[in-house]
Every structure is written in structure tokens, then in C-alpha cells.
């Protein structure tokens, strides 16, 4: 029983991993790629770890497998967050199909402080010095 | 697999050496990193490949086929020392750059003394 369950989890996990990779390749902009890698890959690994835990049926292994899952669940979103934020700072372009951008113009370029949505939008520096930076 | 790895090692060496021959010091650093990969893999492959069994004795009964531990110990040492060397080289380049403001190796020779 455990073996079959484990096999199933493995297959599901692998499928999600593959999907994550596909998403990272296919999605049109960075942020969507982050979606793929954060969600799908984490879930995929989670499934695989669960499969491993089921396979070994020992407390020590299960604890560790769960530790891996918890760890990933803790770190993957934070990783995505710091990366996404940094990417936004370096003005990675959003996909053309993006409908709106509430964040636009709310970062303070020098202090990296972020204002709330009610704050007035600041004209973006890149609209001025797009060519000067190079 | 040995054959495959041999080609991988060759590829790594070629890449590393090409990078080492660049004039930009930063590329040289990358080459250094690749070189240590290549060297470690070389020892690993040349010492013989064993699939699966880690060189850990399960309590009581020694496993029948286990991987050769000695090259592993050797490579472990090599990896860590490689890290030290890379760190040092990196900082050295960093200092040289901040002093001379060039990353062109050929231009560094005037400051040879």
C-alpha cells in the first residue's frame, strides 16, 4: 500500500517538477516564471519528499523529509520575493499583457523604501535617463 | 559511463582553459572554478565508478560493494581547498582592480614590480 502511494506521489511530484520547468521556459516574463518555479517546483519536491518518507517508514527519515518540505515552503516564497523585488528594482519589463501595475512608481530609487498605494506616483527615473545609464 | 564522463571532463577542461586564457581577469576566475570541477571529476572518474553504495558501513554487517572511500576523501579535501583558493583569487583580483582600475591582464604587467 505504502509502496503504491509512494509511487503515486513520486509520479505526481515529477509531473509538477516538469511543469515548473516548462513554465520557467515558456512563461513570457520573469514574474510568471517565478510563479511556476515557486509553486509547482515546491509542490513537486514536497510530493517527492512525501514519497520518500512513505518509502522508508522510519521516524528519523520522515522527520527529515518533512523538514525539507517545511524548509522549502519557508524559503521558496522568500526567495521569490527577494528576487521579484530585486527584479522590479532593476526594471525587468513586465509582460505586455499585464493589465495593471500598482507598484509602478512607488519605490524610492535611492532608499528602496516602498510607499503605500495611496501615495502619489513618482515619475519613473528610467523615463528620463534610460540612455544615460549605459 | 566512464567514457561519457571522460568526455565531460575533457569538455570542462577545455572550457576552463579557454577561460583561463582570456585577458579579462574576471573570466580567469570563472576558468579557475571550472578547472576545479574538472580536476575533481577527473580524480573521481579515474579512481573508478561504483553506483549506489555510499562508503558507510551499516552497523554490524559490512556491505558487499561500496564506493572507494579514499578518492572521496581526497576530493573532499580538494573541493574545500579549491574554495579557499577561489576566494583568495577573487579577492586578489578585486584588489588589483580597485588599485589599477583595469581588468586587462596584459595591462597589469607594467605594475609587475
Amino acid at each position, binding site marked *: 500500500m505504502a509502496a503504491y502511494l*509512494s509511487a503515486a506521489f*513520486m509520479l505526481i511530484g515529477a509531473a509538477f*517538477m516538469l511543469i515548473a520547468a516548462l513554465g520557467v*521556459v515558456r512563461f513570457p516574463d520573469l514574474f510568471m*516564471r517565478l510563479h511556476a518555479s515557486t509553486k509547482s517546483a515546491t509542490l513537486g519536491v514536497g510530493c517527492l519528499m512525501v514519497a520518500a518518507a512513505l518509502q522508508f517508514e522510519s521516524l528519523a527519515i520522515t522527520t527529515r523529509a518533512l523538514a525539507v518540505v517545511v524548509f522549502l515552503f519557508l524559503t521558496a516564497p*522568500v526567495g521569490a520575493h*527577494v528576487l521579484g523585488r530585486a527584479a522590479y528594482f*532593476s526594471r525587468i519589463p513586465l509582460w505586455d499583457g499585464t493589465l495593471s501595475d500598482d507598484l509602478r512608481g512607488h519605490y524610492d530609487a535611492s532608499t528602496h523604501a516602498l510607499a503605500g498605494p495611496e501615495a502619489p506616483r513618482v515619475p519613473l527615473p528610467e523615463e528620463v535617463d534610460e540612455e544615460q545609464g549605459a | 559511463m566512464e567514457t561519457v564522463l571522460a568526455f565531460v571532463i575533457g569538455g570542462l577542461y577545455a572550457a576552463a582553459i579557454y577561460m583561463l586564457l582570456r585577458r579579462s581577469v574576471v573570466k580567469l576566475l570563472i576558468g579557475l572554478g571550472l578547472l576545479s570541477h574538472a580536476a575533481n571529476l577527473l580524480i573521481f572518474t579515474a579512481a573508478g565508478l561504483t553506483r549506489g553504495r555510499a562508503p558507510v558501513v551499516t552497523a554490524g554487517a559490512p556491505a558487499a560493494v561500496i564506493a572507494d572511500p579514499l578518492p572521496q576523501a581526497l576530493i573532499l579535501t580538494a573541493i574545500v581547498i579549491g574554495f579557499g583558493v577561489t576566494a583568495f583569487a577573487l579577492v586578489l583580483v578585486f584588489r588589483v582592480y580597485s588599485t589599477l582600475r583595469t581588468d586587462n591582464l596584459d595591462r597589469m604587467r607594467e605594475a609587475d614590480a
Partner: protein
Amino acid sequence: MSTGGVTSVVFGALILAFLLAFVRLARGPSLPDRVVALDLMATLAVGFIATYAVATGQALYVDLALVLALVAFLGTVAFAHYIEKGGRSWRRI
């Protein structure tokens, strides 16, 4: 029990995923894209290790997965750190 068959399918999927991630790593176009790819590769490696542990029945590999899970995050943070600090300087590269 067809664990052997299952694991080899899983391995195949993972390697395929690896190569796909590498495609993103190579194509970029921006540094964060590459970092996403690298991060994904690390995560894939964690999965690979778990699968490997199952395939060989050696539990000790699970620890490896733990180490790697930690480390992958670190790399990403470092890159993000750089990107943010460097502002747009990566574009000049």
C-alpha cells in the same frame, strides 16, 4: 512492486526538467531570469536526491536534500542582493 520503473520515469522527468531549466539559464534574457532557472535547478536537485534515495533504498541521502534545500535559497538571496544593490548595472554587462 514496480519502484524501478517508476523511479526511472521520475528520473527522466527530472532530467528533462533540468535541461529545460538550463534552457532558461542560457537564454536569460535578464539576470533574474537566470537566477530563477538556477534556483529551479537546485530545487530539482532536491527532488532528484529524494528520488535517488527511494530508488537505491539508502535513507542517508535525505540529509543531502536538506542541505541542498537550504543552500539553494542562499544562492538566490545572494543574487537578489546583488541585483538590487547593483540597480540596473546588470544591464550594462
